[in-house]
């Protein structure tokens, strides 16, 4: 096997495609991840995140397309111990205690972390002597995290790692992951918690219906969605004429206030002041990641909810 320095190349997926019968789970995904990058995969249920992750890990064979992990095939990257992960589904084997499971996982990898350290920082030291089958859902998830962490791989792939974990647990989890990222490890994770992606990822890859619909930093994603919001007090105005302003894609009324969704907030504001000099309390803000998510992943054929006068 060719020895490749994990620092030389990141992860490269080209033209990944996978269908299950008539379901086109992934339709041509191209992804390049630099070493040391932290990337969040976001997307609605059934978007194809897990299928993409499984193809990156070599668990699922793509119908078309290729994957290279640090310059090697997923199979040989996995055999070299460069890859570790938490899958979305699956429970630990029976007849093992938590400490044993973590030690077992450590034994597979060339440079594992110390088992006791991992048990401590994942908050499962107290559970170390428990049977892996006798844990609560969130505890089991912490143990799964411990097994991924102890492997200490160069690429860590996590499919919804904090699903079912309580607030404190999620904070601890991301605290630990910040340390892992600081060590220069490459991290790819899927999540439905947008604030996690917002706070933790260098980059967000937004997937919908098996394709990447946006790829960039949080700021870029928000800009791409064009979901800047302008609020103003403007009683009695005709919503249709607001929606017709340049740069505005939607207008809503909340009492005396109006809320405009803008693709170009600068143009919208200029025209707003020009056409409606009586406008007061004008406030422009970047849309939330949630708004961007909803807008970018919306079905193409559905009408935008903010389009036209709905009141």
């Amino acid at each position, binding site marked *: 096997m060719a020895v490749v320095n994990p620092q030389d190349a990141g992860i490269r997926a080209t033209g990944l495609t996978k269908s299950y019968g008539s379901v086109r789970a992934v339709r041509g995904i191209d992804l390049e991840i630099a070493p040391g990058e932290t990337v969040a995969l976001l997307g609605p249920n059934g978007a194809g995140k897990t299928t993409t992750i499984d193809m990156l890990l070599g668990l699922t064979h793509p119908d078309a397309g290729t994957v290279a992990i640090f310059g090697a095939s997923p199979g040989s990257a996995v055999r070299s111990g460069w890859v570790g992960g938490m899958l979305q589904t*699956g429970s630990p*084997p029976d007849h093992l205690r938590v400490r044993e499971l973590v030690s*077992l996982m450590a034994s597979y990898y060339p440079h594992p972390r110390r088992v006791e350290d991992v048990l401590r920082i994942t908050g499962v030291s107290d559970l170390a002597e428990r049977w892996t089958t006798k844990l609560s859902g969130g505890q089991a998830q912490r143990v799964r995290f411990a097994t991924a962490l102890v492997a200490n791989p160069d690429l860590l792939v996590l499919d919804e790692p904090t699903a079912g974990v309580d607030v404190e647990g999620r904070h601890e989890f991301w605290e630990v992951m910040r340390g892992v990222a600081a060590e220069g490890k490459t991290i790819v994770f899927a999540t439905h918690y947008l604030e996690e992606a917002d706070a933790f990822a260098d980059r967000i890859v937004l997937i919908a219906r098996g394709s990447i619909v946006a790829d960039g930093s949080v700021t870029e994603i928000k800009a791409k969605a064009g979901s800047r919001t302008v609020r103003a007090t403007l009683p009695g105005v005709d919503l249709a004429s607001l929606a017709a302003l340049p740069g505005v894609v939607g207008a809503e009324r909340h009492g005396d206030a109006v809320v405009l969704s803008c693709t170009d907030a600068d143009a919208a504001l200029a025209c707003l002041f020009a056409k409606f000099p009586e406008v007061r309390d004008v406030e422009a803000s970047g849309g939330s990641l949630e708004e961007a998510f909803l807008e970018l992943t919306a079905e193409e054929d559905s009408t935008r909810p903010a389009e036209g006068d709905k009141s």
Partner: protein
Amino acid sequence: MSATHVRYEILRTFRNRVTLGVTLALPLVLYYSIASGNRHATSSGIPFPLYFMTGMAAYGAMFAAVSPGAHLALDRSRGWTRQLRITPLRARTETVAKVLAAYLVALPALVLLFLAGASLGVRLDAAQWLEMTGLLLVGLAPFVLMGQILGHVVAGDALVPAVGGLVILFALFGGAYGAFFNSGAMLTFVKLLPSFWLVQAGKAALLLGDWPAEGWTVVACWTAALVPLAVLVYQHDTGNV
């Protein structure tokens, strides 16, 4: 690196108390309840306590040999084998661990039956005991493989009847419960089964010190046929072509 996996695999097998208990106890109970009343009978040309001892030893050992396959199916349904697929663990280590676990359970199953046989008057010299043990362990190979194949092919709740049915049929036709098929086409047929030769291990050790060439051929052919099949189902199951 792989020693830990093998160790935990064996540990898990022995912690599976219910399966282990039934595997070890059931043949013993059957042996005492049937052989103690027939201490002076003969079967297939040898004393019945010896015949039935190897029969029940074969039966217990067959169960022991296929049960890691059942455990594998459980690991598969829990998603654990998928998790293993993304670790550097090699298929070779996985297989060694399963085979070792199978034999480590089979061995006490044999020893317990031998002790039971001795308590009912079975007397063999040391070389014969050893020969018999050796033949039984060799004859188990096809069953270890069958367990692995079933573990990869059969899903969840179908596995218990599949494993149970397989062992009981092979045990029945192999003569583990008694030599019901003594002549004609049926005898020709049952002689083609590896379980027949497992059961004959006692007779072979007593009279010949070994299986006849026919026995070795049957066991070798089953093993040779099942190895590629096991590899095939492994690759199919794991997408590891």
